[in-house]
C-alpha cells in the first residue's frame, strides 16, 4: 500500500546517493520519469528516476532507468516491480523501442529481479562503475526489455562482445 506520486522537489531528497544537481537535471528535463512511493505514515518508501533518449530513426529511442531505490524497510513488497512497470508504461507512451538499465554484474539480487521482470542481458560494459577514488571498479550489465513498438524484438538481441563505457551512447 503505497501512494505513488510525481516527485515534488523538496527535502524528500534526503535518502540519496547523488548530488542535488543530478536530481535537478532530471527533474528539469524529464519530470514525468520521476516517481516516488510514500507509505501511509508519510515515510518515503522508494523512488524511480529515468529518462527517454536515443535516435528514433535508428530505432534506438528508448526509456532508461537511471536510479531505482527502495528503502530497506519497504523491500520485498513488490514496490520495485511496480515502479518499473510505471516507467515502462511512460516509455511505451513515448513510443520507445525498449527500456534499458545498467546494473553491477555482482549485484545478483538485482540482476535476478530484472530478469523476472522480463529484462535480459544485452551486453557487458567493461569497468562501467568506478570507485570513489576514480579507479575503475566493476563491470556493468546493460539489460534491456523490448517494448511493443519493437515488434520483432530486435533491440534486445545480445551483443556477444563486451564494450567499453566510451563506446556506448
Amino acid at each position, binding site marked *: *500500500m503505497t*501512494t505513488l506520486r*510525481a516527485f515534488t522537489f523538496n527535502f524528500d531528497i*534526503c535518502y540519496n546517493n547523488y548530488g542535488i544537481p543530478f536530481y*535537478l537535471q532530471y527533474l*528539469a528535463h524529464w519530470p*514525468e520519469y520521476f516517481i516516488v512511493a510514500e507509505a*501511509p*505514515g508519510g*515515510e518515503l518508501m522508494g523512488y524511480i528516476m529515468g529518462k527517454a533518449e536515443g535516435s528514433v530513426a535508428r530505432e534506438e529511442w528508448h526509456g532508461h532507468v537511471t536510479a531505482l531505490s527502495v528503502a530497506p524497510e519497504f523491500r520485498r513488497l513488490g514496490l520495485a516491480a511496480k515502479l518499473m512497470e510505471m516507467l515502462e508504461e511512460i516509455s511505451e507512451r513515448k513510443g520507445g523501442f525498449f527500456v534499458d538499465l545498467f546494473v553491477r554484474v555482482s549485484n545478483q539480487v538485482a540482476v535476478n529481479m530484472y530478469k523476472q521482470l522480463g529484462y535480459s542481458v544485452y551486453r557487458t560494459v567493461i569497468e562501467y562503475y568506478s570507485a570513489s577514488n576514480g579507479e575503475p571498479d566493476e563491470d556493468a550489465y546493460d539489460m534491456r526489455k523490448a517494448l511493443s513498438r519493437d515488434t520483432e524484438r530486435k533491440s534486445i538481441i545480445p551483443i556477444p562482445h563486451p564494450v567499453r563505457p566510451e563506446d556506448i551512447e
Partner: protein
Amino acid sequence: MAARGHVQDPNDRRLRPIYDYLDNGNNKMAIQQADKLLKKHKDLHCAKVLKAIGLQRTGKQDEAFSLAQEVATLEPTDDNSLQALTILYREMHHPELVTKLYEAAVKKVPLSEEYHSHLFMAYARVGEYKKMQQAGMALYKIVPKNPYYFWSVMSLVMQAISAQDEKLAQTMFLPLAERMVEKMVKEEKIEAEAEVQLYFMILERLGKCVEALDVVRGPLGEKLTSELRSRENKCMMMYQRLQLWPECNALSYKLLLKNPDDWQFYLSYFDSLFHLMDKSWSQPEEGEHCVEGPVQTTVAEAVKFVVDRMEEQDKKESRPLRGPYLACLELIHRLRQRGCPDEKELGDPLELMVQFFGKFGDKPCCITDLKIYLHLLPPEQRSQFKKRLGELVPLGEAGEDGFGFPGDTKALQRHLCVCQLSRALGLQHALDTEGKLRLITELKAHYHHGLQFGKNSSTPISLSLALTTTMWANMLWQCLSVLEEGLSFSPSNAQFKLLLLLLFCRLGAFQPVVDLYSSLDAKHVQHDTIGYLLTRYAGSLGQFAAASQSCNFSLRFFHSNQKDTSEYIIQAYKYGAFEKIPEFIAFRTRLNQSLHFAQVRTERMLLDLYTEADVTLSLEESVKAMGVCPEEDDIPWDNMRDNRDLTVLVSWDPKDRELTEEHRRLSLEEESVWLKVRSLTLRLLASLALLGHAPSPRNSDKTNENGISAKSSTLQTLLSQLDQTLETAVQITEKQTQVHTLIYLTKGCYCPYGSLLFPHADLCPSLPSSLSPLRPEMLSRCKGEVLEMKDGRLTTRPSLLETLVFFVETVCVVLWVASYSASVLRPLKSSLQKKKKKKKDSSSAMPVVLCGFQEWTGSLQGVVTQALDHVKGQEASLTALKLAALTLEEGYSQTQEECGFTRAAMDKVQSSYLGSLQELGDLLRKRADSLKSLKI
C-alpha cells in the same frame, strides 16, 4: 567549457590550449598561455577573460575582476568572450553582471536569437521576472517559436508568485498570463504538453477550477500524456477544490479498482463518501449520472467495497497487497471518529491486526503500518495483543538463560516487530527496573544470536531497543559500551552512530564525534537537515579546529546550492518543465533561509576571529575580509526555516512520548535566541574592529568625526540589543526545564560584553574612570574537575568546558578592547611627553587615564596567567586519572568484553577532554603574547 564548434576560426585554434589547461585544472599554465597569446594578439579579448578565469581560480579575485571589466566595457559580441565572461561571473558569484553583458550584446546585434536567448537566461539566473517577460517577447518577435512566447508567460506567473501583494498577482499578472495563453488557444497555436500544463497552472492559481477542469477534460487535455494519470490527478485536484464529491468519489473508486494498493485514493474515497453522506446526497434521475461513473454514498457500500478488495487479495496466489487490509483499519478509524456503529461489520481491530501480522509480520514495514492504528486497541487489550502476536513468532527452545531464539530471518523479523510494537504500546515503559534490566539482557542476547543472519540487516534494531531501554536507567557508560560493541559488529549502522554521537556530545567529548559524523557519510541536503548534530556542539566544547572544519562541510553545501539551482531553473525553462520552476525556487529559498545555514555562517566567522584575528591578520583586516558589516543583519529572522530533521533517530516510543510540534517550537525558539546572541557578538566585534578608523567609502559623505560617532552609536545599539537578547535567554531558562545547555550558560557566563565594551564606545577624549576588569568570578565558574573519579564512579562535568570556552572567548574580546584603548592612548601620551619636554616640568604626574590603563593591563595579565595555570592543572589531573583502576557500577553485570568497550569509550572521553584543554591552552597562550604589545 565554452562552445568550440567552429574549428575553422583561427582564434578558436589559438584559444584551445588555454581552454584545455583550464579544463584540466592547470590554471597557472592557462595564465601563461594566455599571456603568450596576448603578446602577439593584443585584441584577442577572449584570451584576457580566460586569463581572468585562471586568476580567479588561483585566488586572485581582484586581478581577475579588473581584467574582466576591461573586456566587459568594450561590450564584446564574440561568442567566446561572452561565454567565458558568463562562466567567470558565475564563479565570482556575480550573475547580475552577465545580464549587463548580454544587454549590451543585443543592442549591438539586435536580431541575434542566440544573444536574446542568453539574455533571457541571464535574467532567469537572477530572478528578474519582469525583464524575462520582456526578453521572452522580444525573442518571439524575432523568431516566432512557441517556447519563447511561453517563457514570457511563465515569467508573468513568476511575477505573480513572487509578488508581495497577492492582489497584484490575482488582478494583474495572472489574468495577463491567462489572456496571453487564451490568445494562442483561439489561434489554435497550442503545440506542446508543457503549454497546456502552464495554462492549467495559471487557471489553478487564479482559482478558476471550473475552467481548469474544462481544459483538462477537453481537447487540450489530450496533450497531457507524459506523466502517468496526469489527467486523472489534475481532475481529482480540481474536484477536491470544487468540492465535487460525487466525481471525486467515483474517480477514486475507479482508480482503486485498477490499483487496490494506491493509498491516496482510499483517502479521497473515504473523504468524499462521508462528505456525500453529510450532505445526504442522492443519485440523480437517470441520464444525469456523474461523468466519472458510479458514486457510492453509504457506509454499507464502503464496507462491502473494502471487504471485497480484501477477499480479492486473499484469493490471490501471488504476494498479497497491504492496501486493502490497511484500508479496512482506516475505515474503522473513520467510522469510530464519527461514532458510527457499523465498524463492527468490518471485524474486531485486534483480530484484524493479528491477521495483518500473520500476513506481513515478516516484512520490516509491518511496524510502520500497524503503528498508525494502535490507538484502535483499548488499553486493556494491549497485553493480550502482544501475547497473540507472540504466538505467531516461531522461536526455538528456551536455553539456560530462558530465552528462545528465531531460526531464520523471517522469524527474526517477526520477533523484532513484536518487540517494536510492545514498545510502541508502552508495555516496555511500564516495566519496573528489574524488568527493564532483564529486557536489556534478553534483547542483547537476541542481537548476538541474530548476527548469524547478517551483520547489517535489521537485527541491530533489537540492540537499539535495548539501548534506549538502558537510557531510562541512566546508565550512560553501559550505553556507550553496548553501542561501541554493536558498531564493531555492524560498522555501517547509522542508528548506532547517531546514538553514539549524541551521547558523546552530551558528555562534552567532541573528538570521537567528528569521525562518527564523517562515517555517516552525510550527503547534500543532509548537511542542512542533520548537520546540527555536529556543529551545535563543536565550538562550545573547545575543539576549534574540528569545529571550523564541521562548519565548512555545511557551508560548502549551502554555497554550491545557490549556483547549481539557478542553472537548473534555466534548464527547466528550456525543456518546458514549468511546474518544476516554482519548486526549484522554493527549494533554494528554503536552503538560503535555513536556520542551520545562519548558524554555521555565524559560528564559522566567530571561530575565525577568536582563533586567528590578531595572530595572522589584524582584527580589522579579518573583519573586512569576511565582509561583516556591523550595521547589517544578514539573517532572515522573520522567514527563518527550521530544516532540522529531529526524527533522524528512529523511535518506537508510544505516541505520548513522541516529539511534538511544541517541542520543535521551543527548540527553534532557543536556537534562534542563541543565534541572535552569537550574531550580535559577531557584529559587535566587527564594529569594535572598525571603530576609530576612517569610515568606509560608502559613508564618505560624512566627515571623519561624524563617522566615528555613527559607529559608536551602532556599537551602543548592538550592545543594548545584546543585553535584551541575553535577558530573553535568561527568561527561557527560567521558563523551561529542559533547555539548550548553551542558553543555560548565558545566565552567568555570557554577559560581560555589555559592561566591557560600553565605556569604550566614548573613549575619546578621556578614559572613563572605571575600566571593567575581567570579573574574577568568570574564571572561578570554570573551576572544578571535568572528569572525576569518586568511589569507583566516573563522573563528568562537561559544562565546565563550555564555561571555559566562553571565558577564553571573553579574554579575546577584552584584549581587542584593550588594544583599541592602547591605540587611542598612545598619541595622548606622546603629546603629553612633548609638552613635558617643553615645560621641563618633571614633577607633573602621569595622567590618571594612563595609570589606570597600565594597572588594568597588569590585572589582565594576572587573570590570563591564572587561567593558564588552571588549564595546566586540569590537564595534569586528567592525565593522572587512571581509568583502568575503575570498577564499574553495580546492578548491571557486564562481561569482560563489554567492560573493554566501556573502557574504550571512557578513554575516548578522557582524550577528547585533554584535546579541548590543549586547544584552549594554546589559544590562551597566543592571546597572552599579544598582551605585550599593549604597552603604551
